[in-house]
């Protein structure tokens, strides 16, 4: 199940693990990404907390934790090669994985159709 936030993140739920990345729309709007800072594994983060930074050639923007949870994995490949996020934002360009206590908290986010309507 993939959900979408108004901050243009996609959330992929598998058991109690959520993989977080940015949408194709966001990657295109940001332009060429040149720097990414990721959270630390083990960080306990609260919904809305800024956990990651993206710098494109144009501007800096933040990625916030969509829900409460613990960071369990980060994608070091995008730190080494930020262009991966432009090339494959919904695949190889994922950002981090978090373990969440309450999968139901994802219900409030948009599904694909709602997100498509949101960005139009």
């Amino acid at each position: 199940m993939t959900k979408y936030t108004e901050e243009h993140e996609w959330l992929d739920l598998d058991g109690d693990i959520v993989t977080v990345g940015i949408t194709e729309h966001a990657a295109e709007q940001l332009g060429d990404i040149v720097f990414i800072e990721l959270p630390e594994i083990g960080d306990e983060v609260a919904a809305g907390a800024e956990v990651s930074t993206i710098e494109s050639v144009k501007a800096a923007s933040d990625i916030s934790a969509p829900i409460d949870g613990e960071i369990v994995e980060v994608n070091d490949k995008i730190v080494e090669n930020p262009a991966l996020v432009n090339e494959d934002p919904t695949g190889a360009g994922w950002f981090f994985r978090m373990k969440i206590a309450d999968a139901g908290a994802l219900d409030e986010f948009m599904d694909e159709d709602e997100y498509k309507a949101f960005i139009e």
Partner: protein
Amino acid sequence: MPDDHAMDEAQRTPLFALHESLKARMAPFAGWALPIQYPSGILREHAAAREAAALFDVSHMGQAFLRPKSGKLKGAMLALETLAPVSVAGLAEGRQRYGLFTSPEGGILDDFMFANLGDALFIVVNAARREHDFGHLRAHLSDACELEELTDRALIALQGPKAEAAMMALGARVGEMRFMDVAETALAGVPCLVSRSGYTGEDGFEISLPADRAEGVAEALLEQPGVAPAGLGARDSLRLEAGLCLYGSDIDETTSPVEAGLPWAIQKIRRRGGAREGGFPGAERILEELESGPARLRVGLLPEGRAPMRAPTPVFASEDAAEPIGTVVSGAFGPTLGGPMAMAYVPTDHATPGTRLYGEVRGKRLPAQVASLPFVPHQYKR
């Protein structure tokens, strides 16, 4: 996201339709609708200027002829010297030079290019300062000069190692031109005023031409091998790598030409002991700073990590210093440099290349070294 209202109000350059057909992402800049980037993206557009050729629409910039009322150009040249600390009268026919308008306090009102066309000076100023500058010239030089604003002309910059071949393939006689030469020549059958200059650090040309012929010429240039359109995003990363100042960011009324590291723009003849010493606004401060050195300087900064330090990142002398000593005025990722770069104003005793300073980014003090400018060597054809 573009500001829709500002976009509706924005003036359109003669190349607006071409930008739309090339699917540019447009945004308002200094009151003009201009391309930020094309679908290829800023990194590729930047690379085109460094490795092949990039075409920029800079028609938003203000163009004018300054003509002497006496009929003798020398009169207009000496008049312009009363507003700018540069040698105008020493500029040979067919040559262009960088100039600055200064304030009575010794700040910079704008930077501009001027060329000697024999019977007139050709002046190009920043879009955001166009009204100010032309008003300033009229207010102070009307006794000696006639100012003719050129509102029906476009300005195209073609920059990069393949620019010359593209120009010559369209019949422009530019092969003998050196950096900062100016000449009238036909390009794709259209009479143009061409200078061998630009603002990217590369060899290249700026082409002033009639607005109604600009689209055809731009299209003809884009058909030449290696020529790609480029927007304001690439223009900014290119000029920053080249260590060139952006008015409103790196220089303004609060910075003097000497603080800004532009003493090279003030020829000896206008300095103390020179034949035409002083006689421009702010001369007292500027001439003193040229001799004794300024309190602060614009420097290059190379962050040691990968995080860009954008304006207005505060700059500290140490990791735990309480007060900043300076501020980043331009900062970005340098595509050719392959890392972040910035320019900042810091006290002169912290301005030596190699000095380690700290920029505070998102609450963290990150190390950066003072570096010589430009970050990427210029490739001008001298």
